[in-house]
């Protein structure tokens, strides 16, 4: 029988509070659902429909020769599946929890209600664990159904098989895992919404460049594996910076 890690009582109580507050925040719900829906479903599905349907873009793709990541990609839908889709999956996996973190962490800090929490018998670690877990749950609850839509469309409209879908799912899950470290870093560094947005940008731009390089240089499904590992490394690095260098004390100082 699989034993799940034991969650402490303070974290459980705070997690319920965070989820309740998230569901009551119209702004959080709107940004938490709308942006992921655009990134994860609207953009990729429109691309696949264009490639499969009567679009002028239909047919053979003209790709630069000698680029390892592009080798063997002759059709437009393959170009989307192997070049642009990984970008969407990484963006969706990283951005959705980061957006949720902006709401759960920054609003608490800006209105100084964090003082109420710290006065209760909980540690700063409990507070941040509950917030990060809430962000992750919200992101997973948003992204996974959206991914199921993607997977269905991919299986119906393209030649990509179950292996592609599995590889893409691993990438989304790794991006979600990486978001734990990034959300924690965001919680410790950002004191207001502007800083939080700047920090999100700070992570997104290099991540996109890294993803772009990866899809250009790594062939076939290997790019999903390499990207997944890079996501875990990025998340691990962010987590280490947050816990070892910044420390939880920073949340209150």
């Amino acid at each position, binding site marked *: 029988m699989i034993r799940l890690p034991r969650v402490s*009582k*303070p974290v459980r*109580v*705070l997690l319920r*509070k965070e989820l*309740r*507050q998230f569901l*009551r*925040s119209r702004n959080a719900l709107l940004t938490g659902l709308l942006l992921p829906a655009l990134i994860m479903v609207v953009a990729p599905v429109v691309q696949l429909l264009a490639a499969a349907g009567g679009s002028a873009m239909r047919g053979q793709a003209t790709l630069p020769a000698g680029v390892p990541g592009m080798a063997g990609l002759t059709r437009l839908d393959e170009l989307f599946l192997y070049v642009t889709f990984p970008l969407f999956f990484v963006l969706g996996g990283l951005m959705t929890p980061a957006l949720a973190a902006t709401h759960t962490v920054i609003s608490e800090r*800006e*209105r*100084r*209600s*964090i*003082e*109420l929490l*710290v*006065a*209760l*018998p*909980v*540690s*700063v670690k409990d507070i941040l664990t509950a917030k990060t877990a809430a962000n992750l749950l919200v992101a997973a609850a948003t992204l996974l159904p959206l991914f199921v839509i993607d997977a269905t469309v991919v299986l119906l409209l393209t030649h990509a098989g179950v292996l592609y879908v599995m590889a893409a799912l691993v990438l989304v899950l790794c991006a979600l895992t990486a978001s734990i470290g990034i959300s924690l870093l965001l919680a410790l560094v950002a004191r207001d919404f502007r800083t939080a947005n700047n920090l999100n940008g700070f992570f997104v731009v290099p991540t996109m460049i890294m993803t772009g390089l990866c899809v250009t240089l790594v062939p076939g499904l290997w790019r999903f594996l390499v990207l997944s590992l890079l996501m875990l490394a990025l998340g691990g690095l962010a987590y280490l910076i947050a816990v070892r260098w910044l420390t939880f*004390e*920073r949340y*209150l*100082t």
Partner: protein
Amino acid sequence: MQPVATALAFRSVTKRFRNGRVALADVTWSVARGSRTCLLGPNGAGKSTSIRILEGALRPSAGSAELLGEPVDGPGYAAARLRTGIVPQGPGMYTDLTAREFLRIAADLYGCRPDRAIEAFGLRDHLRTRLAELSGGFQRRVVLAAALVAEPELLLLDEPTVGLDPKASHEVHEYLRQMMASRTVLLCTHNLAEAEALCDDVIILREGRVVVQGRLNDLRRGARSRLRLAAHQGPQAVVARLNGFGPVRVDGDRVLLEVADPEREAPRVLRALMDAGLDVYECTPQQASLEEVFLEAVG
């Protein structure tokens, strides 16, 4: 659970932040079980850092701090924390949680029910109101109720009336008087009248160091005490007859004479003034106020 004589203790505690600022410098103080102590000091003296360390939110850079006999970074701290209620300084209020929901969270964390605290602070009719929509006085009641929900033996109050209007402050003081009885209390405040009214012991911090610690009455006695004198002939006539008794100061139509023991000196001074033909209508021994003790300590 073994009773502890010292409820709170800072032993050679230094707190240095990452930017190099030293908030506490080798600070040692303690609060005896059952005492009501105020922690005073100007801004930046280290009061809030001390409370943060006791909350477990900050760790000392050196030295050790104890809460109910348990080191704040030790394994027994979490249990000690469940026996401690904390009222934070001017917290922000949730716009998306009602008073009931917040008190339920507090009660769940302490492992008890919120009903007694709700009744004690008269919150029954306001439970469905969101915290941010309550008046300042009721918001503070909710915060007090959360701190006292588990009937803690130790209460840490960080500026409990800051930002409240006089009526709400008075109301909170009434609650505090009731709640502080039979508990160990550390009151961190800028309001000297509040400290004087609610506490028996005092610790004064300045620039991260303890400059005064002791019983309030002892400190008053140790500080310069005075006799307040008034005569129909006016203050200048009184001053003229007080030569040799001690330093004097005119305060309106009164004269303040500094003496070591006002109660013992009063008959001698009074006799001298009456012998000089002055119609004395006031001769009152005055102990130094906490404000005077404080100003003398912090300069």
